[in-house]
């Protein structure tokens, strides 16, 4: 993977650089920010995260499993009390709820990791330690013939440092 990386001190310069890069049809752009910012999010125009679908599916699976455990246990070794149902949904709702939260919550975290591409073993290409501190960054994956063009755009918008990486 090769491309160009630029570090910015200011957020408005970063936003303008992203908009310009998009106009010039640089497709594969990654933006680094020490904290999430609406400005960058809107400049990038990403679709909504799919984490919510995983949360819904596994939350429903969790509540189903959470009801199934006590129903199966009660059926397997019935404790018969006159006038009381063997499988009683009211107390089992507690277990259904807890298992829903447990499975839905853990699935949400794993989905986030999967979609975000973490855990990642290396940080080498297209990252700079200052992006977790105070600077914003843009990494553009581009073939060598368009690298100069990308560097010019970044410099034009006031990048503090621009370099090629591979």
């Amino acid at each position, binding site marked *: 993977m090769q491309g160009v990386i630029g570090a910015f001190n200011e957020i408005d310069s970063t936003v303008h650089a992203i908009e310009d890069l998009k106009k010039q049809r640089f497709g594969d752009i990654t933006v680094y920010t020490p*904290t999430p910012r609406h400005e*960058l999010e809107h400049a990038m125009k990403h679709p*909504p995260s799919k984490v919510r679908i995983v949360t819904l599916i596994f939350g429903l699976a969790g509540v189903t499993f959470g009801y199934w455990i006590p129903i199966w246990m009660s059926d397997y070794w019935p404790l018969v009390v006159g006038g009381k149902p063997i499988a009683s949904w009211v107390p089992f709702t507690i277990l259904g*709820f807890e298992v829903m939260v447990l499975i839905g*919550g853990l699935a*949400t975290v794993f989905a*986030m990791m999967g979609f975000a591409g973490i855990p*990642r073993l290396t940080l080498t290409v297209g990252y700079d330690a200052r992006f*977790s*501190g105070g600077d914003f960054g843009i990494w553009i994956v581009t073939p060598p013939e368009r690298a100069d063009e990308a560097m010019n755009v970044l410099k034009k918008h006031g990048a503090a440092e621009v370099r090629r990486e591979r």
Partner: protein
Amino acid sequence: MATTAAPYPGEGQHRPNIPSATHRLPAVKTYDQIDDEIIATLRPTLGWFALLGIAILCLLGGIATWMYQIHEGLGAAGYQPPVMWGVYIITFVFWVGIGHAGTLISAILYLFRAGFRTSIYRCAEIMTVFAVMTAGLFPILHLGRPWKFFYLIPYPNWRLLWPNPKSPLVWDVFAILTYLTISSTFLYIGLIPDIAVLRDREKNPVRKAIYSALALGWRNSDREWRHFTRAYLFLAAFSTPLVLSVHSVVSFDFAMALTPGWHATIFPPYFVAGAIFSGLGMVFTIIIPIRKFFKLQHYVTLNDLDAAAKMCLFTSMVVGLAYLTEFQVAWMSGNQFEQDYFWNRVFGQWAWAAWIMIICNMILPLSLWSQKLRRNPAWLFILSIFINLGMWFERFVIVVPSLSHEFEPWQWGSYRPTWVDYGILLGSFGWFFMWFLLLIKQLPVMAISELKEVIPPKMKHPHDTTHELDEGFPMPDETGAQH
């Protein structure tokens, strides 16, 4: 982290981040300043070593006492019929309660977009995880044969006999384990971007390798933040009803029994309010010294303390109302046993404990109606100690008087904890503070990435209206006072 949780107000002028929009840190100017000042708190000091030593000593005392109890049997504790639940169950409920404020502050206040949570929620989350870990020890300590604790886990024994899923004790296992898992996950997920900051600044290769592994290769990219903020929001949404459910389930341990003083429908909301109240008390006990000794007064401002104190006052009044409602229900029920029990609680055998509870939980917190006292960290710290004491006694008043004063007069008895009970109680504080002190010197006590959301980022053209802050909001001064 809060960004995508907030509705986007449209093009043109808009807030930077809604949850932080009412929160201002005027003495914090740059992202680098946040990194420097929060990372500086990780350097161990002599005072920290001294506190850690005391905590470990208390823990060792608790372990030795427990070994003695295992050798001698549960009779070494102060149990005597009919009081067969004592300090261990009281302390279990106490620690579960303490564990509520963390998730309340981090999840519920996040969903309600209360800006003051930003500076205090990491501490509260750490407190939650270790408080629930401490609470989880007590059902085991309460067993005569603690190595059989796994009987409560839905796993068949050698006769293929399963635990009874209609028992509140089984619900407890599910609720506490889920709460511990989700709270720990919530804490760790929130820490990932901050650990990445530590990783990128660390020079020591061993520590750098550890931070690199814990940061999971986090790079602060737009792709990571997009999924992260959404996942964080959903975890907050899951945690919110979880907070309410866990202490409701703990209250069922009592309310499902027919014992006078326990068998009441008011118990779940009463326990939840009490848990939040006691958790806030412990937050003050922890955050006020941290704020002072780590020199973080410009992060945890007087405005933040004021807002948390208002919440504390509110929950104190809910708890006070619950105490009074219990008496009214007993009075109006026409049930002789209930009426006798409540009379005995306040004017009889256990009056001393009940009045400690009432004074600490109902009367002293009324001082928080005064804004001057709400903004006085020394008073908040002193009050928090009384709240911790009062909430422990609340659980004492729930557990012991009911068991000692049931239906038949010939069954009435008393209870006196022994040195074994006190040793294990002290050990639990040692266990909690040991983990807490160890963690706050390894990982940031404040959420670096969320603090960065609060301050405006550097801009080349500060008057660009696209990124302008809201005007008209009263800006606080260096001490956090608004003008």
